[in-house]
């Protein structure tokens, strides 16, 4: 039984691709969220092993959601997904404690190796 992962991205297409990559590798997609608010809510109820969190999302952005998630569980494993040019936001997220980050567009291997390392840490 693979680790459970929560996917948060406002683009359903993006979530679909990520879901496919993850399930193919044997991970369980615990749930999906289309904005930061939903991501925090789902994190509370589902308690996944890891969260893939997009930075740019409506209602509550990824950084804010990340902070909320860390107050719920300081040991939460979060990987940030960002677009190019969001370098400063990524550094901010690292300072706050995310395990890794992925820059879009990404290759499937990249997402998988990041998740593997984050889960192992």
């Amino acid at each position, binding site marked *: 039984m693979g680790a459970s992962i929560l996917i948060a991205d406002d683009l359903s297409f993006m979530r679909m691709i990520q879901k496919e990559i993850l399930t193919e590798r044997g991970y369980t997609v615990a749930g999906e969220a289309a904005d930061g608010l939903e991501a925090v809510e789902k994190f509370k109820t589902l308690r996944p092993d890891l969260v893939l969190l997009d930075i740019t999302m409506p209602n509550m952005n990824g950084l804010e959601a990340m902070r909320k998630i*860390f107050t719920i569980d*300081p*040991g939460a494993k979060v990987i940030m997904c*960002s677009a*190019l040019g969001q*370098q400063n936001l*990524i*550094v*901010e997220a*690292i*300072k*706050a*404690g995310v395990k*890794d*980050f992925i*820059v879009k567009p990404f290759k499937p291997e*990249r997402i998988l*190796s*990041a998740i593997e*390392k*984050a889960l*192992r*840490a």
Partner: protein
Amino acid sequence: MDESRLRHAFLEEAEELSQKLGESLMALESDRTSAHLVNEVFRLTHSLKSESALMGFAALSELAHRMEDVLGLARNGSLSIEKPVIDSLFAGADLIAEMMAAIAKGESGASFATGEVLRGLSAFGGKDPGGTPTSGAVAQMQRGRAGTPADAADLVFDAPLTLGEFEKLQLAEARDRGEALLKITVSVDEAETMKFPRAYLVFSNLEAVSNVVKVVPAMEGEPVEDALYGRTTLLLTSSNEDEVLRTASGVDQIAHVMIERCQFDAFLASGADRAGETGIAGGGQSDIEAASAPGTGEAASAGQDEQGRRAGAVEKTTIRVDTRKLNDLWSLIAELVLHKSQIARLSEDIGHGKDVHSVREELVESFDSLDKISSGMQQAMMDTRMIPISVIFSKFPRLVRDLSRKLGKPVELVLAGEDTEIDRSVVEALSDPLTHIIRNSLDHGIEFPEERVRRGKSEKGRVSVTARRQGGNIVIELEDDGRGMDVETIRRKALDMGMNEAETFTDGQLLDLVFLPGFSTKDVVTDLSGRGVGMDVVATRVRSELKGDVMLRTENNRGTRVTLFLPLTLTIVNALLIRGESHLYALPLTDVDSTAKLVSAEIRGEEGRESALWMDEEIPVFSLGALFGNGRPKTDEYFAAVLRHGDRKAYLVVDELIEEREVVIKPVDDLLNSQKMFSGVSVLENGKLVFILDTSFLRREHF
């Protein structure tokens, strides 16, 4: 700087470079595969090239440039150092030495025939004197000129790990604790599009398991060009080498991690700025190819791009400024232009014979406005130097969380005042001490949960970091609710160390001892069962470098509070203007307690060790005259400034106390400051120079 002094400075340094070049070439001849030596020779020729080009010695620069080209190829592995290569390099080095000798005699070096040596060098793939590429390897080098990321990253490798006083003290303490000194070079996978965040992730993870002393390129403050972080070098101390290696290589998208165990002494020796290269202990290397990035080789291109080089020196020549601040400045400039034309009109009016009285009134008005505008501009310009302290604070949540998990001590971190703005030049110097204090809190201050419960506290410890502006100062408080320090233990320690006066010390005086170099070493602190490892290090950085002050308050079983007082900016300082030895000097007001009149008859003791009463305390007396080797003029009465440093005070006798005022600090040339007596120089409205006395120099010598 005038021409002859510039020339002198150039010659002094270039001659040393040229001499080292000869020595390094000899070493390279007997060890031709040494990458370190190739790097060294490359660096020397590069420095010679740049410096001579700056001075306009074209022939010399050209020659050094060709040598550098050849070494660049050797460095990226496309040229092996065979005997003919060494021979031409020697020929080049010899010629450089001859040219230097000629330049020292006042010639330009242009009369030397360099053609043959240049041709010899170009045979190995450097450009021929005409500038056309002569081999495939050169074509590759040309691409490097366009400034590929790998090119830039490659250069950082050579950036020396130059350590300041703070870092050296940290090393000395780590050595006393028995930790290992490690130099870690992390190469980010070339496919990574964000190299700085990647390197930051490694740095951040390492900070949780070790004490990171220095990072090149720097992580805090304004980041340099992203590509330069493709290769990041960290110097850290740790008691667990395996953990460090595991942590560094456990980050994804890292192609290569190299760990070198270094010797403390090499870094601690004075002037050992390139200790990173000499301080490597034999056999202490581990090399890891991270599994996630197979086949990512070393960056292989010769860096020839001048811009890349300048960036390679990791100097920050650009800053990021909030556009709102620039807009403020811009609107002030618009007003300035307006008033300028108004004054021009007024002067014409006078020319046309307009009534002088009405012109005068308008002129006064204009002047008032100009006065407001200029102070507004000064403020606005200052503001562009200010950035929110959150750039430092924001990394603490992770640090505390990681440390708290590692130590098994649940800790809540409370941050406040993150919007408080500080001078950007302070950021880099401040980050380490704050990190150090927080780490101390978690390591030594906060107790384990069981102990806390036994002491009637909540299971979870609490660390708070607060920043606020208070007058002309930034005040940063770091407080924990840990076990605190026992002042009586400090008193006992002090007495053990032969400090008999500690018998009657107040609590404040006892706590100040923790800041004394060597007092807060490991065995003392373990006994203190509080915190304070390296507090002397923190104090040195804050007091000497940042011109601030640090204070410690503690209560047994209730916790400890460290308070840092920092000046708002390091470029403008409130100072007391004084005259001594017929020159003007400025004393930063933060170092001045008060001013006083001193009656000659009240000064006791022999010359050089005099003292006098201040309130009811006997404090040292010294005069500016004595500092410069002259005695004190003999009169019945003297003016003096009372200098203060923590609880210590001293009289500084001066000829005249002039006024209190703001002065703008400019760096002072080393030639004028060989004894480090001045922290800067300032220019007054009338064009007079005022040297700003560095009171840490006075303290060192006199109290």
